[in-house]
């Protein structure tokens, strides 16, 4: 997966898999992500996207988490091929 470009989590379709590259945004947001185990390198899978541009449901470190689409833009993901 050498030269695969990073994608924003908000752009991923359900079923996509990859690993977290970077978490941007407000410090409080990043701290929260850290505590939930969303750190650079952690594997992540998109379980589903809620309708009407609702939250994205992901599974990371064995836990299901819903992230608002706007917040998901702050998380970049390296896709697994």
């Amino acid at each position, binding site marked *: 997966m050498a030269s695969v470009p990073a994608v924003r989590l908000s752009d991923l379709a359900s079923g996509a898999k990859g690993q977290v590259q970077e978490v941007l945004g407000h410090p409080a947001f990043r701290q929260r992500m850290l505590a939930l185990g969303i750190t650079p390198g952690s594997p992540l899978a998109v379980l589903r996207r809620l309708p009407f541009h609702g939250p994205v449901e992901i599974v990371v470190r*064995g836990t299901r988490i819903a992230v608002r689409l706007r917040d998901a833009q702050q998380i970049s993901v390296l896709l697994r091929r």
Partner: protein
Amino acid sequence: MRIALAGNPNVGKTTLFNALTGRHQEVANWPGTTVDYVTGRMADSHEVIDVIDLPGTYSLTAYSQEERVALRFLLRERPDVVIVVADATSLERNLYLVLELIEFTPKVVVALNMMDAAKRQGLRVDVQRLRQLLGVPVVPTIAARSFGLSSLIKEAKRVAAGPAEAPEPPVGYPGWLRQGLVAPLTARVAALPEVGHHAAKWLALQLVQGDEEVFRYVAQLPGGGEVARLAGPSAAAAAGGRVATFARPADGNGVDPGPPRPQEIALIVADARYTFIAEVLRAVARRPPWRRDQTERLDGLFLHPLLGYAIMGAVFASGFWLAFVASAPLSARVDRALVAAGGATAAATSSLGLPVAVRSLVAQGIFPGVGAVLSFVPYMAVFFVVYQFLQDTGYMARASVLVDRFMERIGLHGKGFFALVSAYGCNVPALSATRVMENPRDRLLANLVIPFIPCNARLGVMAVMTAAFFPGPGGALAMIGLLLISVATLTSVTWLYRRTILPTDPAPLVLELPQYHWPSLRNVLLATWHRVWLFLSRIWWYLIWATLAIWALTYFPVGAPLAQSWAGRLGHALAIFGGHYGFDWRLMVAILFGFVAKETTLSTLGVLFGAGQGYLSLSHALTSAMTPLVAFTYLVVYMLYVPCLSTVVQMRRESGGWGWAGLGVAVNVLVAFAVGLIVERVGVLLGFS
């Protein structure tokens, strides 16, 4: 001996707590916050053990109010031992808090909970090996079946009595961080009073990560101010010089990366912990290949783009039906019982030869007033059973995710949806239901706007009056109009609060979607009992005074007709203002008295308008005294103005003080009369009368 229970949310911590302490529990409110915590007592042949159920937290770094309370308790109260409850099925994330606690105190016991669920998933954990790697006792438990509790307590006692300094915490941080940054600071922190060497290391590690809560704690210790400043949240600048001397090794290109910023350190620390966790899991856990489990299958249904919303509608509708319709006979019975008790007491007191005033106070004042409020205890009880059930099963998190997008539009939060909808039943439990929101500002906002939602009692008054003034389909239209006005008011006021004093917090909405599981009856009932008890223990004092005041206003001067009583005079004074709306003194008195309990409004109106018993006579009396426009305006004001006494008391409790509750009430009154004025003027312009 004191044991604190810590753990992530949804790991069965409260189930464990209930299994340990049974019914010997007390709810307390953490000073200065709206966070409750429960303490319980365990009977043991040797000693008394107090157990404290700390709020659920993902980490020791305080992010939410709950986490701050948990951290504050651990820092300042120093329990003898901390039992950290970890979900065996989600070890990777749960071990994070375990590691933090091991770094924080040497007195840790891990309860590896939900071992049955782990087994069902085919997950095997080598407990002995885990114990070796972590360096602290690990006890497998199944809290829901009280399995493993006695060995857990045995280990806890052993650890509490053991030596203060345990072996080194297991996580290996980079050398430049450990020796360069943390070690010198640890020495300074350890020299402060009441901080041991073990905790000092953790405190130092938190300080260099810019943890504000730890900063505040260290700064308030004697001599701690200087130490905290050395590495506080603004440490990047303050400690710049010192940090630079211990800077990280240069990167691959030979460029000195410069002093690390607290946020970078936080990332490095979290990374080191998760790396360690990954190693541990490789050694102790064998997980079968991931497969579609039951939770995934259910989510396919409950989070389905179409079906999901239909199911949510059905679930909520049946929940509210149970809470507000099925419980109605129970409420009526409580009300009747108290009125009857009032009559009986009056009869009994008359034979004792007490003055008439006292008898009237008892029979017409205290008993009916108290009855009106107590009659919604059945509502509350059933409501909380439903609420706790939905919460514990894991369904509430799904519903929050489904509606979050719409709630976000009006500046609120998916987690607040249930509270808002349930407010149409009763505002009081709805205010408590806002607690699921972890952000205090979101919670406060929901608390301030919920009173604009007309509850069961207000809806009842509205239904009777619209039916009287707008017969036929007009009544339905008027009712829909009123509800639209309430929704429009709610959204605009929320918008205003967001633009002024309560801007959206930059903190994110992150919702964990736990595994579905069947909740234990004990958990649901205990939680319900705590909430109802908290409400009753707070309301009675206000209730007595309010009913006393209302009785006195109508009773004095003795023997005067209602129009000349104190209440009548007050009504006449208020009518000067009410005249702008076409409200006479009787309507103003009814608005005022509705404050104790909105349920009483219809009977108050009946008495004031001299109507006999029954709906027809009341509606006749009302229609002959008011025009439809005045009646509609009255309902708008009535629907939006100050909620009842119970709501205000609850608002004070949930918002954390009289200040916010006072503001909420003031905004309610202002908005109600402002919207009422607009409705009245527009009505006149459109040619209604």
